């Protein structure tokens, strides 16, 4: 466990030594504010809830999370530090976990800094804080799922741009599989069971149900299994083409 913490610490200093973390946090805060107030009509709704705020997270994360994670492995590969890291007395999974946790912490920090939203709804009305907490948890889990996909694509290439684009496409697929306009279209020529099966692969389906305040173990399990699968694949990739 100690090497995981050592690596995570180094990664975090790396994020804050370069502008990556700051840019991410500032843009995330600006965009999430813009979407919830201007687009989703936070005030016009007249509801004391953060639904308008959370609804945009799958789309915000789609571009912002890959931007945070794209350097995770491709940079190591490009600089040659991968060779240094993997000849240290650490196992590949310790390195994978350390890097992932550090990037997730950056996402979590950005999410945490939206607390004025929470203060605002509590000042204006009496929201169900349990639902809001569930929303934050769901958002964090979704960010982790996107991030693990980015880790996987980042391990495949030494080019950050390629890692970014591929992970955006993969994440987009995970969104669209359960996005109502897409599922409505699928219903016309696929059996409802198949549409449901495809939709159950989507982050949308699971995020929405958590966001409503329903902490179903299946939803949590979904996000965790996306992370475990992606990070496991990352491990396989890192191990098999180390020299490249």
């Amino acid at each position, binding site marked *: 466990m100690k090497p995981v913490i050592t690596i995570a610490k180094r990664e975090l200093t790396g994020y804050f030594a*370069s502008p990556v973390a700051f840019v991410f946090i500032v843009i995330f805060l600006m965009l999430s504010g813009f979407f919830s107030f201007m687009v989703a009509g936070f005030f016009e709704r007249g509801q004391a809830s953060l639904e308008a705020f959370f609804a945009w997270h799958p789309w915000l994360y789609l571009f912002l999370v890959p931007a945070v994670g794209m350097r995770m492995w491709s940079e190591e590969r490009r*600089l*040659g530090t991968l060779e*240094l890291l993997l000849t240290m007395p650490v196992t590949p999974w310790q390195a994978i976990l350390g890097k992932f946790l550090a990037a997730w912490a950056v996402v979590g920090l950005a999410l945490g800094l939206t607390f004025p939203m929470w203060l605002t709804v509590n000042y204006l009305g009496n929201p169900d804080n349990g639902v809001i907490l569930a929303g934050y948890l769901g958002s964090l889990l979704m960010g982790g799922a996107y991030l693990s996909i980015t880790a996987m694509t980042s391990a495949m290439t030494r080019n950050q741009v390629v890692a970014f684009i591929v992970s955006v496409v993969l994440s987009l697929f995970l969104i669209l599989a359960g996005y109502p306009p897409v599922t409505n279209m699928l219903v016309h020529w696929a059996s409802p069971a198949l549409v449901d099966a495809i939709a159950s692969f989507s982050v949308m389906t699971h995020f929405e149900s958590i966001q409503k305040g329903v902490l179903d173990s299946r939803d949590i399990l979904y996000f965790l299994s996306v992370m475990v699968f992606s990070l496991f694949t990352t491990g396989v990739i890192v191990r098999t083409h180390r020299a490249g």
Partner: protein
Amino acid sequence: MIQVQNLKKTFGPKVAVSGVSFKVEKGEVLGFLGPNGAGKSTTMRMITGFIPPTAGEAIIGGFNIVDNPIEAKRLIGYLPENAPSYADMTVLGFLSFTAELRGLSGVAQRKAVDRAVEMCFLENVLHQSVETLSKGYRHRTCFAQSIIHDPEVLILDEPTDGLDPNQKHEVRTLIRRMGEKKAIIFSTHILEEVEAVCSRAIIIDRGTIVANGTPAELKRRSNQAGAITVRLASGSAKAVASKLDALSGVDHTVVLNESPAAVRAFPRKQTASDDLARAISDLAGKEQWSLLELHTEEGRLDEVFRNITLPDTKSSGKESK
């Protein structure tokens, strides 16, 4: 300490290393020579556990690098080719990070970092970020990382690459000093380095070991080895050469300089070069030559290196095109 048995690595159809075996004990400094693309770095990467071998095994201090990677890696300090390091960290931050990964903490960590900084002359740049450093400093930073935990095994891929002559000298001195207590493998293109530092050298070409011995033994394989050079204050080379040719132990002579005469005499196969040197000195006395120089060639490593690897580098160059 390091035991390499029949190590092989293939990348698809391309054979990078085909069956390399050797041993390095404590107190030995093994020089790893070979043309570019001969498989030096690949071999080192397999020994350090960065890439898994296709076949064969590397055992570090009793631990197989494939079966017990963590235990084996603990014993190794490794300087990869091109000396990579995290560009966004300071030198101190980077060294503390590697020390921590090596399991050092608190006072032990600080001491280890101080020692490595002192040995690699990094005091002046301790708080600078790595990306602002010159190549020499960057290289030494990575070198410092490799010795931070005072490892028993040190594997250095071109440790003097990109250093200025003074730094090269420092690093060589350092390697030689550490070589008294550690098992060291280092690769290089610079042959004088091998003579200055190594207790043994291996020449590797196209994935196989083509020569293995002490620098002196390798030099003896040179064509020049054992030849006697005679240089006179005056006189013509032709006359001297014909006199030398007449000696029974001389196979042939080569004129190095017409006038004043300088001639190199090569002994016959069965003649010891010391005997020939004695015969030539007798001849010089008899002929009353005013000798300026009479010495036995030790042979030259670069010539041995070229003879062993040249035909191969040419053909492999064509293949890669």
